[in-house]
């Protein structure tokens, strides 16, 4: 019996999921064609006129697009510097807590923000930072002038990264905590015998021990760079803050689904995918060189 026939039922089972992947994951990849055509909803992809690189030229020469691109990069760099290390540091500190009951208590509380929806968190931010909201009340009590946080472009990045940390630090620490418990205790004992203090142990035993997990998480973070925090930004931004808040994904959303500029938005989406591809592959290669292995 051929190999395929032997596992007939397994392939039958896979049929439904595979159809799903074909239609909803690979299908859109062919939709990229829309970027090269004057897409018309009624004529469909095949009936629409060929436009070549017209839309690519349109956004590549638009200074507003490059500002949007800059915002995307800046937010991601901030995320890498401020948001990415916090779960690691939190996990390391939790690991050092000797009081087990307190540690479980802290963990229980710390994971909660992750389960709150983006809308809830954005709602909290908008209201706490409003003119008469919690933060401005505190500022007034301390004698200061209320600040219109949500209207000021210069505050946006801080607000965004701050809320990401608030929501993600606890949850993302789980995987690092799991990795920390996997480090061989004998290595620590050997280090103690060699006279290592807490900080040397951290540098020579702990960090190398969890480096592969850090690498994987870092690669995944880089892979998501182009689609950074889309929903939250959508809920938090407004006209006055577009200057720093508008990122590629929100730009694509507005131009594509609100303004119905389908071909243009798809063309920008291609840019997004290409950059994401380049980033992930390069980061993976660097990881391989540094660590000996990458994600693929």
């Amino acid at each position, binding site marked *: 019996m051929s190999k395929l026939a032997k596992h007939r039922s397994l392939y039958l089972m896979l049929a439904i999921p595979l159809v799903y992947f074909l239609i909803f994951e690979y299908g859109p*990849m062919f939709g990229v064609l829309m970027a090269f055509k004057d897409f018309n909803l009624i004529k469909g992809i095949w009936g629409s006129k060929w436009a070549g690189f017209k839309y690519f030229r349109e956004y590549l020469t638009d200074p507003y697009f490059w500002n949007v691109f800059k915002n995307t990069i800046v937010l991601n760099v901030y995320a890498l510097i401020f948001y990415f290390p916090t779960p690691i540091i939190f996990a390391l500190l939790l690991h050092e807590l000797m009081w087990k009951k307190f540690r479980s208590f802290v963990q229980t509380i710390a994971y909660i923000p992750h389960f709150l929806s983006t809308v809830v968190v954005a709602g909290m931010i908008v209201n706490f930072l409003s003119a008469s909201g919690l933060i401005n009340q505190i500022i007034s009590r301390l004698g200061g002038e209320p600040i219109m946080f949500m209207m000021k472009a210069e505050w946006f990045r801080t607000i965004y990264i701050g809320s990401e940390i608030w929501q993600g630090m606890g949850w993302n620490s789980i995987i690092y905590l799991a990795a920390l418990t996997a480090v061989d205790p004998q290595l620590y004992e050997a280090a103690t015998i060699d006279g290592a203090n807490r900080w040397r142990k951290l540098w020579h035993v702990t960090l190398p021990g969890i480096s592969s997990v850090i690498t994987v998480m870092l690669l995944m973070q880089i892979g998501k760079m182009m689609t950074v925090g889309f929903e939250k930004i959508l809920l938090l931004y407004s006209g006055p803050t577009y200057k720093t808040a508008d990122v590629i994904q929100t730009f694509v959303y507005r131009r594509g689904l609100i303004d119905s500029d389908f071909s243009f938005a798809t063309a920008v989406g*291609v840019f997004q995918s290409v950059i994401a591809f380049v980033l992930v592959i390069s980061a993976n290669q660097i990881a391989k060189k540094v660590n000996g292995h990458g994600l693929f």
Partner: protein
Amino acid sequence: MLAKRIGLFDVINVALMAVIVFVTAFPIYYMFVVSISSGTAVMRGDVMFWPKGINFDAYRLVLQDSAILHAYGNTIKYTLIGVTVNLIFTTLCAYPLSRRQLYGRSMLTVLIIFTMFFDGGLIPRYMVVHSLGLVNTIWALFLPTAINVFYMILMRTFFSNIPEEIHESATMDGAGEWRKLVRIVLPLSMPVMATMIIFYSVHHWNSFFPALIYLNDKSLQPLQIILRNIVIDGDMAEQSAEMVTIVAQNFKYAFVIVAITPILAVYPFLQRCFVQGAMLGAVKG
């Protein structure tokens, strides 16, 4: 373990953790406190750590609001249907991929994992849903995201840990793959199924964007959309007439508390399951 002396580091660590706990929990506590305070106290800015002029009018209004109740019902419905779809699709994908003898297994796995990183883009995805005639139907909320690849891999890992002997003895008893899946594998997989149900449920409960772009009918809108309308956009035209003893902030925060209560109530069970799930994932690496 050698007994350790409590040093300065430990004291600072505990203090830092206390601050983290406070910063994490206070916003939720604050919203609750404001939601049960009187409108005048809130307007005066008197409310910070304790409620003042305690009344439950905000909650009364929230729980009587037909738009909110309808949306809540929608979300419950969508979560139940969505999780069912997720479980069926994810299991039908994970089980065959967990069988080592399956020809083409690695290639299929690679093709599937590829989709975790690379994407056709927002507009093409919308167009696929549109061309299938699913726009403004509830199926647009579950079908395009029927399988979360990360969760599917978790499930596959779990399935592949079931000893081969069990499969072999079942085959000798004349069981085909379908029967094995239903009679043997699934009963053994309750922990991972529980984890899946929880992860997917939270995902559907909190889902906002698909409803935003695919649902035009107001009657189909889930909780998160109404939440956005009221809490972020401040759209309370229908409710303002009734707000005598309370102000917008009371109502908004009461609504948020009502919206997150199910999540918080289920949270202890979540904790147990996701720590298990994360461990499974970490072991696979």
